[in-house]
C-alpha cells in the first residue's frame, strides 16, 4: 500500500498534468531571457570594469539559478498552501481520511521540490548552452537548488498555514523574497554591501545557496566552505519542516 504522503504528492501531480507544458516551457524560456538581458547586456558594461575576475554572465547565471529555486519554492508554497486551508480546502478534505498532518506537509513539499527540480534542470541546460558551466562539479547545482527549495519552502509552508489573510503574502514577498533576491549575492558580491546588510545576506538561506551554486558551476571555493553552507541550509529545512507540521496541526485543529 502506498504511503499516504505519496497519495498527497499524487494529488498534486494530477493537477500539474493540466499545466505542465506551459510550466516546462517557461522553465526554459525564463532563463534564456534572464541570461540575455542581465548576463549579456548588463554584463557588457560590467565586464569593461573587470572587477569581478570572471565574466559577469558566468557570475550571475548560478546566482539566478539559485534565485529561481527560491522563486519557484516561494510561489508554490504560498497561495497553493493558503488555498488548501481557506479556498479549495484540500487539507480539510485530507483531514477526514487516514492521512496525517505530517503526510500532508511531506507530500505537498515533495511536489514543490519536483517543481523546483524541473525549473532548475531547465535552467542548468540553458546555462550549458550559454557556455556558463566551467566545472565538472556543475551538476551538483541541481541538488543545491533542491536544498534551497526545501530551506525556503518549509518555513513558507509554516507561514502560509499561520496567516489569516492572503495580504500577508505581499508582506512576505516585499520584506523577505525580494530583498533576498536583490541583496543575497545574486547580482553582485555581498562584499560590496555595508556590514549590517551583509549580515542579513548571511542570515538568508539564498546567499548560502548562491555561494554553493556558484562554487559548483565555476569550480571555485565558496565563502565559508561548502559544508558550512550545506549545514546552514539543512538547519532551515529541519526547523521549517517542524514549524510547518506544527502550524498545519494548529490550523486544522480549529
Amino acid at each position, binding site marked *: *500500500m502506498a504511503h499516504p504522503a505519496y497519495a498527497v504528492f499524487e494529488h498534486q501531480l494530477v493537477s500539474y498534468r493540466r499545466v505542465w507544458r506551459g510550466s516546462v516551457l517557461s522553465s526554459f524560456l525564463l532563463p534564456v531571457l534572464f541570461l540575455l538581458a542581465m548576463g549579456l547586456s548588463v554584463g557588457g558594461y560590467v565586464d569593461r570594469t573587470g572587477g569581478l575576475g570572471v565574466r559577469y554572465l558566468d557570475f550571475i547565471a548560478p546566482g539566478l539559478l539559485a534565485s529561481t529555486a527560491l522563486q519557484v519554492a516561494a510561489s508554490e508554497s504560498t497561495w497553493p498552501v493558503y488555498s488548501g486551508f481557506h479556498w479549495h*480546502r484540500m487539507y480539510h*478534505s485530507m483531514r477526514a481520511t*487516514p492521512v496525517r498532518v505530517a503526510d500532508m506537509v511531506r507530500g505537498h513539499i515533495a511536489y514543490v521540490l519536483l517543481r523546483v527540480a524541473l525549473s532548475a534542470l531547465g535552467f542548468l541546460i540553458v546555462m550549458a548552452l550559454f557556455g556558463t558551466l566551467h566545472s565538472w562539479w556543475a551538476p551538483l547545482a541541481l541538488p543545491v537548488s533542491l536544498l534551497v527549495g526545501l530551506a525556503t519552502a518549509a518555513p513558507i509552508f509554516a507561514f502560509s498555514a499561520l496567516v489569516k489573510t492572503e495580504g500577508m503574502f505581499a508582506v512576505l514577498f516585499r520584506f523577505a523574497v525580494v530583498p533576498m533576491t536583490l541583496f543575497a549575492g545574486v547580482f553582485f558580491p555581498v562584499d560590496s554591501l555595508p556590514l549590517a546588510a551583509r549580515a542579513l545576506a548571511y542570515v538568508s538561506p539564498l546567499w548560502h545557496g548562491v555561494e554553493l551554486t556558484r562554487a559548483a558551476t565555476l569550480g571555485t571555493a565558496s565563502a565559508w566552505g561548502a559544508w558550512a553552507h550545506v549545514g546552514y541550509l539543512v538547519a532551515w529545512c529541519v526547523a521549517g519542516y517542524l514549524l510547518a507540521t506544527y502550524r498545519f496541526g494548529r490550523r486544522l485543529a480549529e
Partner: protein
Amino acid sequence: MSAAEPLITARDLVKRFGDFTAVAGIDVDVHAGEAFGFLGPNGAGKSSTMRMIGCVSAPSGGTLRILGMDPVRDGSAIRARLGVCPQQDSLDPELTVRENLTVYARYFGISRKVARQRADELIEFVQLTERAGDTVEPLSGGMKRRLTIARALVNDPAIVLLDEPTTGLDPQARHLVWERLFQLKQRGVTLVLTTHYMDEAEQLCDRLVVMDGGKIVAEGSPRQLIDRYSTREVVELRFSEATLDSYVGKLESIGERLELLPDRILLYADDGDAAVAAVGNRDLRPSSVLVRRSTLEDVFLHLTGRTLVD
C-alpha cells in the same frame, strides 16, 4: 467489539472554543445500521459534534468511542472506516469529477485500479455519469453536493457522516440525495446526519436528537417525538390585522396549546376541525385557516420556543 456495542458512544461530550461552549455535555449512542440525526438551528453545535465524531477535532471533555476505538489515539484508524460529507464542500475544483474520486480514494490506500472502478460506480450512483470527465468548478451546487457524497463512499465506510447534506439544494436535487441516502440505509450502512430541515429528518432518520444551544433537548424516533411533544393536529390561523397579540386572549382554552409567531398563530389540538369550529363560535374571522398534522417543526417550536429555519 461485540455485535451489540454501539458504533458510536458519547458520554457527557463537550466541545469548547476558548471560553465558549459549543457542545455542552451530550450523551449519544448510534447503533449499526441505524440512520441517526442531529436536528437543530444554526449554532446548535451539530457540526462541532460531527467534527468530533469524524476525529478531526478533539473533544474538550467527556468520553467518545467510535467503532470501539478512541478518536484521539486511533484517529487515523477510525477515519479509515468513516465516510465524511462536510458542511462546506472541499472538492478540488480544478480536477474532473472522476479525478476527485480517484485522488481521494488514494488517501485511503486504495489501488489505482480499484479506485477507478469505485469512481465509475459511484459516479453512476449519484447520476453524474455525463459530467464524469468535466472539471468540478462549473458544476451546480447540487452536483457538487452529490459528488461530495459519492466521495464519502469511496472507502466503503462503516459509518457515513453527513453534515447538512441537502442545504442549499433545490427540491429536485434534495429528493435525489434523499433517494440515494435511503438506498444506502437499506444496504445497512450506518448514517449519521445533521439537518435543520424537519422533513429531511422525518424522511431519513430512524432516531434523532434535537439540539439547541449545545444541549440535547429531546431524543427519539420522529413519531415518538411528535407524539410526546405535540398534538396530533395543528391549526394555523392568519389574521388581516397586524397585531396578532390581541387574539391570544380571545383564543384561550381552544385546543391544548397556542404558539404566537410573527405572521401566524398555531393552535395545537388533537382534533383540528373541532378547534376551527370553536374559533368560528367566538366570532373571530381569520383571513386564512389551515389544519395540518404535527411535524418535527412543531416539536422544535415547543421545546425551544423558536422556529427551526430562520
